[in-house]
């Protein structure tokens, strides 16, 4: 296509805001950038490689905070109510790339830009107001220090529009807590990687958006057909999401012995009924919420009036989903639904990542149990397993960097290095990012994914091995459209599993570029159809998967530049060692099998087996050489 022509479903406009100078610029990227990268994570990694100097301080003004919807946002295709955010992570300095659902991405795209890149640091707190192509930097000192619920209400009041969508940090981001999230619609987090701390370091409190612009789509008809198909099948194909959302995971994974418990130490959480999805639905769940253009409504809404006041739940903060229920529940052995849900509410109000917040508290609980910290080290904060009040207290300390919370706010990797005394052995993190709530001893490929993901331990650019063991699996059918493979046991890490992993990880990355909800039952072909219809450029199945491979490759290239190598692609030893009881007893991940699988994956990706550097041949094959030509030091 001509370099002057703008791709369908894009405006050809990347908005750049420098908060140091107040400069607002619009970049017109070569249409090849969006054709090859689509948006989301691939775009984030590309822009960081291009614009961020190597070795930059993640919390310095040079870092870029990039809000990156994809081509499909704003097209009204069901499942596109998501967007990505990225930066250099303040945890270990690798790529940070996280996605959130809700309404912000859809609204932003309709405001006339494809992406937003924020650099610099404002002298005092500000927020951005973006409406139908207009951009304004506004003072936010009056919003600083407030919880996310009131801040959204105040911004809407100030802008005299109840439909304004707000991305914001809470007090955790203001204090540059390294596990701070960027919150959207108050209760949807781009949680992983410390993006809230990056936003706080820029004195940027919020980005408010309102968009009613018509997005030019090349051919609406195939998108309408896909929407109709989805409408006819979603209740059957997503029955679990329609009926319960993700909350069934507590009892189901608990029964399999795969519900992370006591900092990944125990095989079974006996008290899981106390935090079950069913109990939540029977007691505190009052409604269901959804994302833009999504009929599923899998988002929980909870409300509770505690006569004692401590555990009252404000419905504006939404309810916990599986990851949060496990991280703030079983992972800390907390069996009180009210305490777990309150912890989730506080994380939303303060803008903390629930996975990492629960992980830090669990880590401290294990340190206390082993006598590695004493009252004089922690200002008297000595949480015990199962103590919901201690969990809540820990969240208060972290969000404000108060007392020992200042050290907890650094995340598990830095805290374990700080405490030392063997605590590194149970610091459950990869590249500084705390492990999500999926058990590698059940899902070995998931474990491999934790190790090789460019962002550290992450379950979104990863596979759930149990989806490929069932002979009737629809995930298997999807892979078989490009690679013939039969059902494989979830604990398998052999060559066939890694081949499958390669394709499906590329697919998952694609979903985070498009940016599409992973729960939707679309297959490779349908996404190729959607991209073709949206852009007017022909995409095939292989093109879709190549987008994902570009995201993984650009992430790897960024990390290589920042000094990460194969040695950083590791898995904590604890989750490789067999449990001695429970349904998974005796199942281990052997180090040799893990290393062989990692080696095989490197081969498939064209990465150097020691440095992890992507080969020039592969960069060429992926069409990245031309794209990266202006990038210094590539």
């Amino acid at each position: 296509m001509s370099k002057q022509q703008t791709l369908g479903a894009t405006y050809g406009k990347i908005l750049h805001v420098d908060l140091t100078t107040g400069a607002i610029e619009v970049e017109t990227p070569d249409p090849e950038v969006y054709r090859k990268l689509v948006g989301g994570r691939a775009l984030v990694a590309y822009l960081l490689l291009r614009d961020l100097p190597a070795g930059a301080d993640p919390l310095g003004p040079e870092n870029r905070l990039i809000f990156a919807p994809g081509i499909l946002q704003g097209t009204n295709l069901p499942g596109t109510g998501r967007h990505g955010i990225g930066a250099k992570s303040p945890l270990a300095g690798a790529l940070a790339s996280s996605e959130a659902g809700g309404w912000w991405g859809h609204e932003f795209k309709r405001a006339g830009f494809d992406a937003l890149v924020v650099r610099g640091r404002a002298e005092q707190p500000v927020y951005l107001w973006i409406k139908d192509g207009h951009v304004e930097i506004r003072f936010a000192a009056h919003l600083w220090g407030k919880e996310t619920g009131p801040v959204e209400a105040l911004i809407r009041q100030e802008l005299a529009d109840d439909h304004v969508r707000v991305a914001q940090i809470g007090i955790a981001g203001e204090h540059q807590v390294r596990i701070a999230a960027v919150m959207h619609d108050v209760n949807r987090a781009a949680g992983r990687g410390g993006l809230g701390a990056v936003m706080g370091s820029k004195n940027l409190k919020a980005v408010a958006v309102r968009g009613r612009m018509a997005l030019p789509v090349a051919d609406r008809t195939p998108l309408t057909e896909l929407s109709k198909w989805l409408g006819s099948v979603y209740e059957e194909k997503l029955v679990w999401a329609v009926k319960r959302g993700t909350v069934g995971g507590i009892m189901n994974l608990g029964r399999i012995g795969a519900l992370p418990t006591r900092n990944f130490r125990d095989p079974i959480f006996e008290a899981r009924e106390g935090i079950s999805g069913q109990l939540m639905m029977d007691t505190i769940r009052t409604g269901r919420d959804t994302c833009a253009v999504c009929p599923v409504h899998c988002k929980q809404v909870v409300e509770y009036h505690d006569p004692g006041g401590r555990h009252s739940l404000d419905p504006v903060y939404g309810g916990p989903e599986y990851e949060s229920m496990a991280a703030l529940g079983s992972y800390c052995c907390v069996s009180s639904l009210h305490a777990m849900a309150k912890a989730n509410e506080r994380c939303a109000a303060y803008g903390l990542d629930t996975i990492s917040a629960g992980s830090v508290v669990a880590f401290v609980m294990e340190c206390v149990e082993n006598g590695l910290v004493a009252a004089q080290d922690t200002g008297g904060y000595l949480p015990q397993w199962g103590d919901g009040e201690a969990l809540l207290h820990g969240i208060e300390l972290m969000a404000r960097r108060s007392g020992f919370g200042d050290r907890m706010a650094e995340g598990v990797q830095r805290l374990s290095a700080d405490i030392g005394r063997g605590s590194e052995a149970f610091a459950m993190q990869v590249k500084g990012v705390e492990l999500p709530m999926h058990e590698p001893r059940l899902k070995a490929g998931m474990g491999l994914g934790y190790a090789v993901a460019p962002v550290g331990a992450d379950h979104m650019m990863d596979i759930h091995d149990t989806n490929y063991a069932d002979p009737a699996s629809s995930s298997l059918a999807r892979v078989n459209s490009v690679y013939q493979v039969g059902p494989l046991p979830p604990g398998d890490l052999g060559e066939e599993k890694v081949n499958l992993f390669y394709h499906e990880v590329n697919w998952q990355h694609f979903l985070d570029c498009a940016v599409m909800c992973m729960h939707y039952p679309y297959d490779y072909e349908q996404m190729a159809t959607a991209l073709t219809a949206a852009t007017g450029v022909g995409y095939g199945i292989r093109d879709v998967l190549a987008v994902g491979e570009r995201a993984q490759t650009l992430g790897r290239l960024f990390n290589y530049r920042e000094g990460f190598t194969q040695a950083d692609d590791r898995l904590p030893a604890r989750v490789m060692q067999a449990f001695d009881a429970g349904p998974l007893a005796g199942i281990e991940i052997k180090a040799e099998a893990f290393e062989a699988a990692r080696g095989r994956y490197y081969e498939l990706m064209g990465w150097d087996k020691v440095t992890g550097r992507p080969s020039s041949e592969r960069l060429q094959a992926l069409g990245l050489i031309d794209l990266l030509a202006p990038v210094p030091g590539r």
Partner: protein
Amino acid sequence: MGRVEVTTVGLLRARLPKGSAVEPGQTVAQAVQTLGLGIGEGLVPLVNGRLASWSDLLKDGDKLELVQSVGGGA
């Protein structure tokens, strides 16, 4: 004639009558097919309380439990 008792948890309970059983001598995969329980995603079989393989042969007196292990995001 032997008997393999089949149970489940969560939403799948609605699709499997209480007291369900299958005949031994078949694999887990065949049993799931017989029961018409194919949900197309993420079903995890336990036999006698331990993680089982889809190709495991069921014996008389075994207890088969089917659990939906939904993968996903939040």
